[in-house]
């Protein structure tokens, strides 16, 4: 088969580009340790979330000095916590979200960040993020979930450590 010299060069450059792209993703995973949404959250009975101790009472829970776990139920049409009460975490903390759905497929996206996952009934999505500066973020459902989809929103507040201490003074589960 006759291949033009320029075409051979182009082919070689194309393969280099592809390998660079694969390399960059691999580096992201191995180097900075960017963890992906995986099957690590396990399965759950979507019709019996109230029998699960994580999702019967969705909440923010401190699990280490600077680490927090947040259990969120995404439902038609809101997040609990998130919609009525904001999700509040302190600055400079590592936050792991566990999110599931009792009805249809939803999305959970902290607007303008890479905290983003699908929420599938029967599965628990697990994502870990770093909350650095105090700031307020919007949370939206980014997967169509029914006629009220556009009303499905929430907020997340990263507050200073002092504010967080004040908020939780009344009890750890406030």
């Amino acid at each position, binding site marked *: *088969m*006759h*291949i*033009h010299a*320029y*075409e051979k060069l*182009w082919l070689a450059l*194309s*393969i280099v580009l*592809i390998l660079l*792209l*694969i390399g*960059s*993703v691999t580096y*992201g*995973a191995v180097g900075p340790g960017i963890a*992906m*949404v*995986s*099957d690590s*959250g396990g*399965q759950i*009975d*979507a*019709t019996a979330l109230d029998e699960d101790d994580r999702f019967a009472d969705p909440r923010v829970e401190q699990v280490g000095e600077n680490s927090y776990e947040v259990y969120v139920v995404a439902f038609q049409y809101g997040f609990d916590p998130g919609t009525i009460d904001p999700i509040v975490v302190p600055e400079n903390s590592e936050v792991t979200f566990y999110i599931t759905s009792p*009805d*249809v*497929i939803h*999305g959970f*996206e902290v*607007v*303008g960040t*890479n*905290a983003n*996952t*699908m*929420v*599938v*009934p*029967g*599965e*628990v*999505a697990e994502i870990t993020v770093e909350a650095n500066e105090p700031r*307020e973020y*919007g949370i*939206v*459902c*980014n*997967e*169509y*979930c*029914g*006629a*009220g*989809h*556009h*009303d499905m*929103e*929430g*907020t997340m507040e990263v507050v200073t450590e002092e504010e967080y201490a004040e908020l939780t003074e009344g009890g750890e589960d406030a």
Partner: protein
Amino acid sequence: MSAELETEPTFVDKFPQEAKVVRAAFLGSFLALTLGAAFGIVQTLHRTDILRGLISSGEYYTVLTAHGVFLVISFTIFFLVGLFTWAVVRSLDRPVVDIRITWTWYLLMSAGITMTGIAILAGFTDRLDMSADVLFTFYAPLQAHPLFYAGLVVFIIGTWLAGADWFRTWLAWREENPNERIPLQTFMVLTTMIMWYIATSAIAASVLVFLLPWSLGLIEQINPTLTRTLFWFFGHPVVYFWLMPAYLLWYTVLPKIAGGRLFSDPLARVVFVLFLLLSTPVGIHHQYLDPGIAEGFKFISMTNTMFLLLPSLLTAFTVVASVEYGARQRGGTGLFGWLTSLPWRDPAFTGMMLAGLMFAAGGFSGMVNAGLNINYMIHNTMWVPGHFHLTVGTAVALTFMAGTYWIWPQISNKPIYSKAIGLFQVVLWFIGMALMSNAMHAQGLLGVPRRTAEPEYSGFDYPIGFGGVEELNVQIAIGGTLLFVSTILFIGNVVLTMGNPKVSGLAEPLPPALSGPEDAPKVLDNLRLWVGIAIVLVVLAYALPLAAIIDNGGLFGPGVGTYPQWIGAPLVAFADAVAPIAGAIADAATPVSGVIR
């Protein structure tokens, strides 16, 4: 009369029966384009908050479903079956074996899409207890009326029969020409259809085994991750199914319009074989953010996806080289000076070139989508529709419109009503899409979600990026309006062309490639080999993920509801009778998947 005898016969002169089918398929395609564009403009103006009176925000999703299904199922695939029928008959230079079979698949496809279309459009009226507001992706547990799923099945069976029709015609040709290479256009059609058979096997299984029985109430539950995975098994190769007819035009027609000929026939074959092999084992890259699928499977899918860039990058080279050759044949000189020697006044040429240019841009945003980790930034944001309006919405749609200006006269003996309107229309499409798509990408980076009637929220504001969200909304609305006007001009031009009197002398024969099929290794034409490798790759990519999904959640679901439910009263009784059987099947399947694991 003597002048007429001297001119070369057109496609319709030689194959009047097939030309009729091709025209019918194109008209079906353009009807869908008109509907899709009408829903498109309503949706653009609603979403950007320019005009919200036409529909309620709840109805937005009915509009969105109609826009998606009519454009990416009926517009694209009806054009494909028309173009492929033309390509097979033209390149084999023989009629189809039995024209009745050809009309049969045309009618099946039409019936199928009508059923699905009725189910969707019924969502606008309360008089019919029917709707299918599930979008093009129809993720369960959102449920559509059974007619929606049944129509899809009928439509897909129609496309299967179309493929069989082309294979049969090729085999008949093969008997008469035992030692010839498969003509390039037929080769492209056959490899694309093999890909389609593999891809649609999953969606057919998903609809027939799970979604249709579930919508009829015969089974109570489905596994949302399983049906979603089966959708994307089909959902990625389908984008290449839209794209391959455009590639066929870029490889075999564009060089001729440019004044030259295809640079390399063997490399064109290599590209189509690569698409056959790599299109399917990549679908999981649409599920990078799915819980319930292990990271390793996502990584494998990412690697395959990146290699899928290769055939498109090769295409970029071959197409540009062929066009440059054409320009130099027309007297073009210089490093870039040859660009001025191209037939820019021809809407067929300019349309395809602009489509190719936008495809390159779409390719770059696609690399971001494919990047397993940076994808988190843009997943399900406006970036994604921004991306695919460059690919299917321009590379494919604009090439189809441009191709129509070249091919329609040859299948009807009627010259195009106005090439000037055609030229204006394709450039307008390019400008409209440049505005709309660019602003969509920018909104995506700000975190604005896709697929929502009201992307503004009461509880928070978007961060400020390259421009405010409102400013980007205006760009999207202007772009969308230009695209709508462009579509109307295209449709009007075609309709007026149909009213033109018939003339002769419109044939435009396609020259053979510079480096012809004799340079291509024989193995490229060994379709059995490529089918085998393609299936092995699909099994490698999907066997373990599917086994894990079934093992985790069960074949018939981990216990989820149905939203909304479409069970008729008589069916409930029937379902009660059948449910134990379905349960037994599910029980039997569990140990099987356990063994696989």
